[in-house]
């Protein structure tokens, strides 16, 4: 399929949760390779295991069985602090509910991963540059409550990008947004992918998945299909709301 070395390699991954007496088999054996520069959408109805898969890929959780190699490192062998370091440096999270820290400015939210990385070199400049990339340089000193949903999600994307991670992991990034803001965010992700960023998108919306170049469908903890597709061309720079993002990218 692809000659490049996989960035993410899942082999026979299962995940079992215990809910009281009942064992829930969220993932029943997933084999998945993701190479650098891919824009992959993982689709599935609720209960299909896509959130569990995202938690595993994001190193928030470890598999029950099977191996997960992230950049050739077996995640199962790492302790909590090493997992935290991987989340900090190699993975950028974008959540459905934005998950910004309330009562902290956009700038402070964006620089937070650098604080935990202990990386203080030009921290403010880098945070400002990341905000500029998502077209929000002029909102740097606003608190999340003073920003629209789309703006908050762009701040979250800037935060995810600040440590130059290997993958951007977006969990239903448009789930809480209106159509226009959704398009805005998807175009931003497309641009980031065009610049070489690997993006893993979790969604249940078909038209959001059309932005990706590869769609993996899950059902009941198993991969149902794995298709490559021509990504929907972003609607272009003519949309006024697109302008800020377009400027930032150029």
């Amino acid at each position, binding site marked *: 399929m692809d000659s490049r070395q996989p960035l993410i390699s899942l082999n026979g991954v299962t995940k079992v949760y215990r809910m009281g007496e009942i064992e829930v088999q969220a993932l029943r054996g997933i084999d998945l390779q993701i190479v650098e520069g891919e824009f992959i959408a993982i689709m599935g109805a609720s209960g299909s295991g896509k959130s569990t898969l995202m*938690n595993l890929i994001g190193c928030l959780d470890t598999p029950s069985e099977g191996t997960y190699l992230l950049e050739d490192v077996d995640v199962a062998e790492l302790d909590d602090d090493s997992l*935290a370091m991987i*989340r*900090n440096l190699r993975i950028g999270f974008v959540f459905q509910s934005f*998950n910004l820290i309330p*009562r902290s400015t956009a700038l402070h939210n964006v620089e*937070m*991963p650098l604080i*935990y990385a*202990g990386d203080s070199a030009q921290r403010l400049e880098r945070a400002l540059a990341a905000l500029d990339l998502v077209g929000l340089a002029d909102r740097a000193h606003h608190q999340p409550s003073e920003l629209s949903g789309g703006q908050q999600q762009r701040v979250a994307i800037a935060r995810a990008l600040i440590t130059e991670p290997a993958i951007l992991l977006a969990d239903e990034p448009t789930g809480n947004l209106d159509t226009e803001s959704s398009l805005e965010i998807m175009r931003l992700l497309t641009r980031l992918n065009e610049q070489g960023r690997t993006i893993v998108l979790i969604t249940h919306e078909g038209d959001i998945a059309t932005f990706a170049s590869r769609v993996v469908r899950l059902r009941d903890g198993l991969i149902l299909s794995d298709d490559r597709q021509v990504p929907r061309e972003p609607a272009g720079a003519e949309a006024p709301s697109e302008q800020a993002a377009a400027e930032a990218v150029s």
Partner: protein
Amino acid sequence: MSVGEALRLAWQGLLANRLRSGLTMLGILIGVGAVILLVAVGNGASIKVQNQVQALGSNIVYIYPSSTKAGGVSQGFGSGSTLTQADVNALNDRSQAPDIVTAIPVAQASGNMTWQNQNWFAQTTGSTQDFAQVRAYDIKTGAMFTAADVTSSSKVVVVGQTVVDNLFQGQDPVGQQIKINRVTFTVVGTFASKGSAALGNQDNVAVVPITTAWNYLTGGRGKNISQIVIQATSADTVKAAQTEATNILLNLHQVADPTNPDFTSQSQQDILNATSQITGTLTVLLGAIAAISLVVGGIGIMNIMLVTVTERTREIGIRKAIGARRRDILLQFLIESMVLSGLGGLLGIASGWLIATQITSIKIGSLASLPQPVVSIPSVLLAFGVSVGIGLFFGIYPANRAAGLHPIEALRYE
């Protein structure tokens, strides 16, 4: 994460809930303030008592008769009458007692005094002309009676300020005739006030020549000496003077068993030690009571930190997702609780100190004003240290709970 970052976060966290932070701080503030204030009050009392003991005279040793036994029953402190004028004479022998300046006999008589239509009750003391010097009384008006008065048992008296105030109602007492136990005395002088009360009012005194006391006031108890007061040459020789006096009296009284003599000696230092033991206990007790409120304040901090951690579960999840390690979260919440308690501690020190300096101006009814509290620097440092320590101690459990949260569950928390 650096401590500086954690401090900034803690400050943001506290500002986000101003009222709650303020009330929690109030708990520590009151605790620390109470410790500072009550220890200061204890210290003040201790220093006041020490000053009063100093005011008894300088470099003083008291000799009392031991208790006698009658039919196997001890008759209590000072009930014996084993001290004699011969003892006093021997103690005044410089060749045997080089460290003693002078030794004076004291005989006590209670005396109801009258002047014109006024009457007053004061301790009447019989002694020698050296009494004023040994017991550090200053003459205010008139003069001390003389050696000649002692020899001739003159009916003269020197009175203290309390007697002057109560008996003479503003008149000059010197030269006035007063009656003590219906015997007429001439007032020849007055003592300046010593202005202290804890060890008995030292101004409510009347001093007459000891011979006069024996002849007219002690009522048939003969030449009784209730105590001998010895003045040593200096503070350094008090111990030596006490030893010399003890040896002289052991010899003179032919005491067979030196561990059970028929007299007791007590230096000013002994009294000071005894009283500072009492006041020290008082200070510790007051401090301990105040410390309880500090513990209560600490529990308040723990309570609020637990609420804060629960409230910010989602924030903790976010921080963990973007790379915060266990110790980053731990540090954030520990520093927050330490800032909370440390600030409360600083405010408590300030308010405790302020009240300590103002409290003497408060008078409660007819009660005498409190002794001036003395804030001790060690208690301030200790209180601050303890308040920060309380933040640490009571913050560990909530912070640990925060740090131990699983990122996925924390992120799902609504």
